[in-house]
């Protein structure tokens, strides 16, 4: 797969990127294999569909409860974090979030940052802002580190380097890391990464992480991981900055266990991850390690848009497990990069239009066969297919001055609308229909050989020479 451009432009080139992946037999096989693996592992975690259904109903209730009370819970979270000594910042845009984090770096003279895996930091393209500000931001999740060396973006939210083979990684390490010889042994490759990054953890003066759940009741940030890089990023440097979307809050601590269980089982088919890291305070007097300062950046970046609509609000229930992409036949064929967004797959198709506007993402809600697999596996019951249909309607309907969605009507075409209006008129009036079908069958040789999107992958439509009613008449 080619190196991805620095800035995302989903709509531009979506077809071309998809086509390139679909025609690449090697990538087809590797995505298929990876998705089959993840689907089987998940299925093994939910042998009892009754248990799964009742647990996801509980998960849905917990997330809907969080969203129903979101303004109050964010205020309570802020008050409890502040009481615990964690500094809370609010950002409406990626630019504001980057400025807040870089300002914290500047205050501490921090030049070396270690990053735990954070999709929100990808969303705000923090690494580019850091580079411009002279801060070295090192990705420490093994998959993210590999992609940073390769100059690529994640193609999956849980398994970022899922598109890369061990041969490609072996070659990459040999080329980019001094003194490293080519090896395809996965254990050896991981140990090479461990050694390089251990030095980075030792030297770093600031750590950045995401957040999986922010508990309003106790003022606690919860992080889910397997590698230990998340714990190191949030413990070894003297300053820790966490960044999260405003929707990640939950009301009570007792709401965490069901969501955590749904997350790990849905994401990678693990009954639990290696580490669950709950941070409630900076280092206290007498404590010998941990950051002296902890900050939380709460990011909007368009999330308040779906929040304002009862149906679209369900988008924000997401706990970012990635099960929808693992089960998506479109994702499996085109891979994560084709979407051109931070979040690919079905969840990306329903969240990206709010983060980036429908102008930039008009093609995404249509990148689905509406087979329904995403909705069936979603651990918090987001009705993804319904939301895709809603967004398609918003994209292709006539632009309205009172539209609540940014870019509503971006895909609207007067010609297309005219055609559909004519179609509705013809099919709604029997006399008109008879006249139309008589003309269409007599003049079927006039049917154009190129019929827009239809003929890009299909033979042209041509009305039959005789109508069904004519054939029936002949038989009688």
């Amino acid at each position: 797969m080619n190196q991805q451009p620095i800035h995302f432009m989903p709509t531009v080139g979506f077809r071309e990127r998809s086509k390139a992946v679909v025609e690449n037999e090697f990538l087809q096989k590797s995505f298929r294999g990876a998705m089959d693996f993840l689907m089987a592992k998940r299925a093994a975690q939910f042998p009892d569909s009754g248990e799964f259904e009742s647990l996801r109903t509980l998960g849905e209730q917990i997330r809907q409860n969080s969203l129903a009370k979101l303004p109050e819970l964010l205020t309570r979270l802020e008050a409890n974090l502040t009481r615990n000594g964690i500094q809370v910042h609010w950002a409406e845009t990626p630019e504001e979030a980057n400025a807040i984090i870089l300002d914290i770096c500047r205050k501490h003279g921090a030049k070396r940052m270690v990053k735990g895996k954070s999709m929100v930091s990808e969303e705000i393209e923090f690494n580019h802002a850091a580079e411009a500000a002279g801060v070295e931001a090192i990705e420490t999740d093994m998959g993210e580190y590999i992609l940073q060396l390769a100059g690529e973006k994640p193609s999956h939210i849980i398994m970022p380097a899922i598109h890369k083979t061990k041969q490609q990684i072996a070659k990459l390490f040999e080329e980019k890391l001094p003194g490293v010889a080519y090896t395809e042994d996965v254990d050896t490759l991981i140990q090479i990464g461990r050694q390089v990054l251990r030095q980075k953890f030792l030297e770093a003066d600031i750590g950045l992480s995401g957040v999986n759940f922010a508990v309003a009741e106790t003022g606690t940030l919860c992080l889910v991981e397997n590698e230990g890089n998340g714990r190191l990023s949030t413990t070894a440097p003297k300053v820790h900055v966490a960044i999260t979307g405003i929707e990640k809050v939950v009301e009570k601590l007792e709401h965490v266990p069901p969501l955590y269980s749904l997350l790990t089982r849905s994401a990678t088919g693990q009954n639990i991850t290696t580490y669950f890291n709950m941070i409630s305070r900076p280092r206290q007097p007498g404590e010998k390690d941990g950051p002296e300062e902890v900050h939380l950046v709460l990011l909007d970046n368009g999330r308040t848009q779906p929040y304002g609509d009862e149906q679209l609000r369900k988008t924000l229930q997401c706990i970012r497990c990635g099960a929808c992409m693992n089960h998506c036949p479109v994702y499996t064929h085109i891979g994560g990069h084709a979407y051109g967004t931070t979040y690919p797959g079905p969840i990306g198709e329903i969240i990206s239009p709010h983060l980036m506007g429908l102008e930039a993402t008009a093609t995404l809600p249509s990148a689905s066969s509406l087979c329904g697999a995403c909705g069936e596996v979603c651990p918090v019951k987001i009705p993804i297919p319904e939301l895709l249909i809603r967004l398609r309607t918003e994209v292709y309907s006539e632009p309205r001055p009172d539209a609540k969605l940014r870019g509503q009507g971006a895909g609207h075409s007067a010609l297309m609308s005219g055609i559909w209006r004519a179609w509705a008129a013809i099919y709604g009036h029997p006399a008109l229909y008879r006249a139309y079908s008589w003309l269409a069958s007599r003049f079927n040789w006039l049917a154009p050989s190129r019929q827009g999107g239809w003929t890009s992958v299909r033979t042209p439509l041509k009305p039959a020479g005789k109508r069904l009613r004519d054939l029936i008449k002949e038989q009688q």
Partner: protein
Amino acid sequence: MSARDRILQRLAAAHADHGQPAPDPGAWYAARARNESAAERTVRFASMLEAARAEVHRVNAGNWVQKLVDILTAKGIANLLVAPATAHGAAARDGLAGSAIACLAYDRPIEDWKAKLFNDVQASLTAARSAIAETGTLILWPDPQEPRLMSLVPPVHIVLVEASSIHATFFDALRAENWSAGLPTNALLISSPSKTADIQQTLAYGAHGPKELVVLLKEEA
């Protein structure tokens, strides 16, 4: 108006709260509670941990220190980091006295010896506060005596856990121990050695944290 106020104002304008019924995770867990003896729960805990590539040794108050020394010797480990201000840390230190294994103490702030901790320490011993049978999980609440990096940086992490402290589920643990009344600076669940499957979905241990997790499961003698 600040970014905070604008965000909160947009959220409030949605009037999303219609007094929906509150979720009841307690009822969900209660309905699925297992009827098992303490011994069965201990077995379940140990087998879950072992399935996640942890080593589990059954010990008691009288023999755990000797078991610790034996494990360290068998692994060829040259030094062990302990918390000498804790009872188990002091017992381990006394047990190692006179052996070839050096006993190191986490007795000063990390800034004073970070490079040594990262480069030289081979193993550490901490206690677990309690445990979870369902997922084979150790619960650690690091404190001034037993700091956070002790269970993370050394390549071998040895954990002493009382069998009597094993809860059935994570939910049971935080309810029974009343976590919502006050959490420490950092609370941790640990369920296996550090691992990753980021290269071609191939599982590899020892990603960034401990490569080996050794559990001393202490039961009544």
